[in-house]
C-alpha cells in the first residue's frame, strides 16, 4: 500500500506540475518564450516582469526607452509619425545602465531604426551600474538560466492572476496595446496634487561643486555612448523631459542646481558629437514647467505632455544643437534661479515643509 501511495503521489504531482508548466508556457503572460498567442493581445502592465520577455520575442524596429515618465507615451504616436513599429523598454528610476541593459536585449535580435531615449537628469548622477537585482527584480526573467525559470513556471500568481488577466483584457477588455505600461488612468494631474505631494526641505544645502558627480557622469555617459557607438545604423532621439518647476526648487534646496546643469551640459557636449543622435530638451519649457496643472508630483506629468513632447520631436522643435546647447544651459540656469527666487513664491503657503528634517 505504501509503495502504491509513493508511486501515485509521484505520478500525480508530476502530472499536475507539468500541467501548470504547460499552461504558463502556452499563455506566457510575461512573454519569456513567445509572442502573444493568436487572438490574444500583448497586455503589458508589469514592466519589471514583462520588459525583458517582450524585448526578446516581439516584432519591432524601434524602442521607446525611459523611466516612468515615458510610460504614458502611446507607441502609435511614434509609429505613425516615423513609420516604425515601436516597443517600450521601461525602467523605474531610468538608470542609464538599466536602460542600456534593456537596449542590449533589443539589439541582440533586432535591427532598430530609432531609439526614443528619455534622459532623466537624475540618471546622469546615479551610479553607473544596473539596479535590477538590488531593487528586487525577478532575476530569473533577466538571465539565460532556464533552470531558475521554475519561479515563473510554477507560480500561482501567474496561474491564478496573470493568465486570467491576459485572457480577460484580450477578449473582454478594451486594452490598447499602444498604451503599454500606461499608469495615468486613475491619476489626477493638477496643482492640488503636486503641491500636496511636494514636501519641501526646510534648509538649503550649500551648492555643490559643478564636478561633484563627475565620476558618475563619466560612467553613465560612457555606457550610453558605447550603445550609440555600437549602432550607427540606429537614430537615437534623446529627450530631457520637462520636470515641474518644483523639481528645480527641490534640486536647489539639495545644493544640486549647478552640478546638475554641469552634467547636462557635459552630456549634451558629448552626445552632440554623434551623427546618429538627435537631442531634445524640455526642462526649460516655461509654458509646461510652470503650469502645475500638468503634474501629479514634481516629476510626473500628464499624457498630454507626453503627446506634446512627441509632437515636438516630430516637428523637430526643442532641438538641441552644437550651436545652441550652451545658450540652453544658460537659459536653464536663469530659469532655475527664477523659480526659487520668484516663480515659487505664490505657492509657498500651499507647500508643506519637512518638519522631521
Amino acid at each position: 500500500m505504501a509503495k502504491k501511495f509513493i508511486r501515485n503521489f509521484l505520478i500525480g504531482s508530476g502530472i499536475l506540475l507539468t500541467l501548470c508548466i504547460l499552461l504558463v508556457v502556452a499563455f506566457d503572460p510575461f512573454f519569456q518564450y513567445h509572442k502573444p498567442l493568436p487572438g490574444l493581445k500583448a497586455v503589458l502592465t508589469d514592466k519589471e516582469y514583462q520588459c525583458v520577455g517582450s524585448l526578446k520575442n516581439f516584432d519591432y524596429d524601434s524602442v521607446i526607452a525611459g523611466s516612468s515618465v515615458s510610460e504614458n507615451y502611446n507607441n502609435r504616436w511614434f509609429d505613425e509619425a516615423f513609420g516604425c513599429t515601436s516597443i517600450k523598454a521601461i525602467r523605474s528610476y531610468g538608470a542609464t545602465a538599466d536602460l542600456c541593459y534593456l537596449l542590449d536585449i533589443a539589439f541582440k535580435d533586432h535591427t532598430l531604426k530609432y531609439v526614443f531615449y528619455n534622459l532623466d537628469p537624475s540618471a546622469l548622477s546615479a551610479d553607473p551600474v544596473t539596479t535590477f537585482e538590488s531593487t528586487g527584480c525577478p532575476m530569473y526573467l533577466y538571465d539565460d538560466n532556464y533552470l531558475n525559470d521554475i519561479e515563473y513556471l510554477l507560480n500561482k500568481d501567474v496561474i491564478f492572476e496573470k493568465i486570467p488577466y491576459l485572457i480577460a483584457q484580450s477578449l473582454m477588455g478594451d486594452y490598447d496595446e499602444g498604451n503599454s505600461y500606461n499608469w495615468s488612468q486613475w491619476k489626477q494631474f493638477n496643482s492640488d496634487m503636486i503641491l500636496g505631494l511636494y514636501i519641501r526641505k526646510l534648509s538649503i544645502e550649500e551648492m555643490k561643486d559643478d564636478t561633484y558627480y563627475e565620476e558618475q557622469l563619466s560612467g553613465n555617459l560612457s555606457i550610453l555612448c558605447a550603445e550609440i557607438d555600437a549602432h550607427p545604423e540606429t537614430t537615437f532621439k534623446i529627450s530631457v523631459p520637462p520636470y515641474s518647476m518644483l523639481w528645480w526648487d527641490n534640486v536647489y534646496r539639495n545644493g544640486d542646481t549647478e552640478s546638475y546643469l554641469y552634467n547636462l551640459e557635459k552630456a549634451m557636449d558629448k552626445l552632440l558629437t554623434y551623427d546618429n543622435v538627435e537631442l531634445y530638451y524640455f526642462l526649460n519649457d516655461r509654458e509646461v514647467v510652470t503650469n502645475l496643472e500638468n503634474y501629479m508630483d514634481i516629476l510626473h506629468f500628464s499624457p498630454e505632455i507626453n503627446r506634446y513632447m512627441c509632437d515636438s520631436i516630430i516637428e523637430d522643435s526643442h532641438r538641441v544643437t552644437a550651436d545652441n546647447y550652451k545658450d540652453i544651459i544658460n537659459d536653464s540656469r536663469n530659469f532655475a534661479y527664477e523659480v526659487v527666487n520668484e516663480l515659487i513664491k505664490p505657492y509657498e503657503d500651499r507647500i508643506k515643509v519637512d518638519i522631521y528634517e
Partner: protein
Amino acid sequence: MLFNSYIFIFLFLPLTLMGWYYLNSKKAYRTAKYFLAGMSLWFYGYFNIYYLAVIVVSILGNYLLSFLMKFSKTKLSSRIGLAAGLLFNLGFLFYFKYYDFFFENINALFHTNFTLRHILLPLGISFFTFQQISFIVDRCLGKAEHYSFVNYITFVTFFPQLIAGPIVLYKEMMPQFEDISNRRFNPDNFAKGITLFTIGLAKKVLLADVLALSVNFGFDQTAFLDTPSTLLVILAYTFEIYFDFSGYSDMAIGLGKMFNIELPVNFNSPYKACSVKELWQRWHITLSRFFIQYVYIPLGGSRKGKARTLLNTFIVFFLSGLWHGANWTYVAWGTMQGLLVVWDNLGIVGVKGSNDKIPARLTIPRWLGWILTFGFFNLSLFFFRSDSMANAFQMFRNIFALKGTGYLYKIAATLDIPEFYLIKQAVNMVNPSMLNTAYLILFILLLAVSAFVISRKNALQIVNEHPLDSKLCCAVTVLFVWCIISFSQVSTFIYFNF
C-alpha cells in the same frame, strides 16, 4: 536553505535521499554518514557561507572537549570540563545572540558607551547549541560516551532538525544512526514522511504565510488599529505562529521518516489545552524537555519544597522567554507564561478531569479553562510579536479603547492572494463598493479554516491513524502541488519612485 523552496524540494532532497540510500545499499555506511553530514552543511551554508564557519567551530569545540573528557579521571576534572563546555556553548550563544542586547541595556543603565556589534545571527544557533549542551553536559557527567567524529557531526548537522528543531538528544539519535536496519529504504516510513512533510508545508505556506500578510501589516500600524482589528490581528498571529512553527516541525519529522529516523514530537495540539501548564506540555515539547532535564532538575526540581519548585518553574519560563529572542518583549512573554504556570501549579483553580496529582481547590469546566488559556496565550503574544514593549502596550491599549474605526477593512484588504483574484474581479464588476466586505469575509473565512484545522486531528495523528489509501494520497498530492506553486510570487513594484 528553506524547506519551502524549489532548490530544496527539486534538487537537494532527491539528491540527498538517493545518495544516502545508494551508499547504504553498497554497505558504505561510513561514507553515507559523511555524505549526509556534507549535504547538511551545504543545506546550512546555502544562504551564507559565514554560517558554515560558525557551526563548524561550534562542532569542533564541543567534539574536542568530548575527546578531552576521555582523560578525565577525577570529579574535579569533570567539573572543569562541564564548566568549560557550558562556558563555550553559552558564550558562543551570548556573543552571537545576546551581545548587543546586553550592552545596549548596560549602556542605557550605566550611561556607558560600549560599541554594539550588530552581529548577523546565524540560523538555528539556539537549536544546535542546546543540542550540543545536552551532549557535553552528559559527557562531562560520565553519562555519555565519546563518539566517532562522523557520528557526532551527523548527529548535530542532520538537516531536518538543524535550523528550527525539534531539539534532539544524542541518546535518541545516535542509536538510530547506528542501526543498520534503518539504512534500508522503508516504503511505509517514506510514505508517512511525504504525508507529514506535505501537511507541514501546507501549514506553513498556505496558512501561516497568508495570515502573516495581515499580521505584519497590523503590527506595522499598531497606532492606527481599533479594537476589532487588534483582536483579529492577534488571533491571526496566534494561528500564524502555530502553523509556522508546528508546520516546520511536521516537515522536519516527515523528512526524518524519509531517512528512517524518528525525530521527537514537538507539538501536540497545544491550542486544545485547558490550562497554561497543559499548553506548555503540548507546545515546543523538546524545548521544555531540555529545560526540565538541564535546568529545572539541576536547580532542584520539585525535590526542595513547594516554594523552590515554583521558583524553579518560573526560572525555566523566564529563560525560555530569553531563549526565544534578545529583547525585553520575549522576557515579558516568558515571565507571563512562567507566572501562569506557577499559578496553575499552586492548585487553587483547576479544570475538571485534569490529571493533577493534587486536586485543585476550585474546579472550572474544561470549556472555561480552554477559553481562559487560549485567551491568555493570545494576549501574551502581543509581547512575543511586537518589536518593542511600547508597541505591545499600544496593542493592549487598542483593545481597551473600545473603538471601531473600520480599520479592520484595511487589515483584511492585505489578503490580496491570487486564489481570490477571480472573486475580486467579479465583485469589482458587479458592485465595487462590496470589495471591502469581500476581503473581510475572506479574512474571517481564513480564521475559521485555521480554527477548524487546529480543532481536528494533528498531523502526527493523521499519519499514525489514517491508512495510506488513495483518498489520503489524492489530498496530499493536491496540497503538495498547491504549496509548490505558492513558493514564488509576483511582487507589485511602486511605480513612481525614480
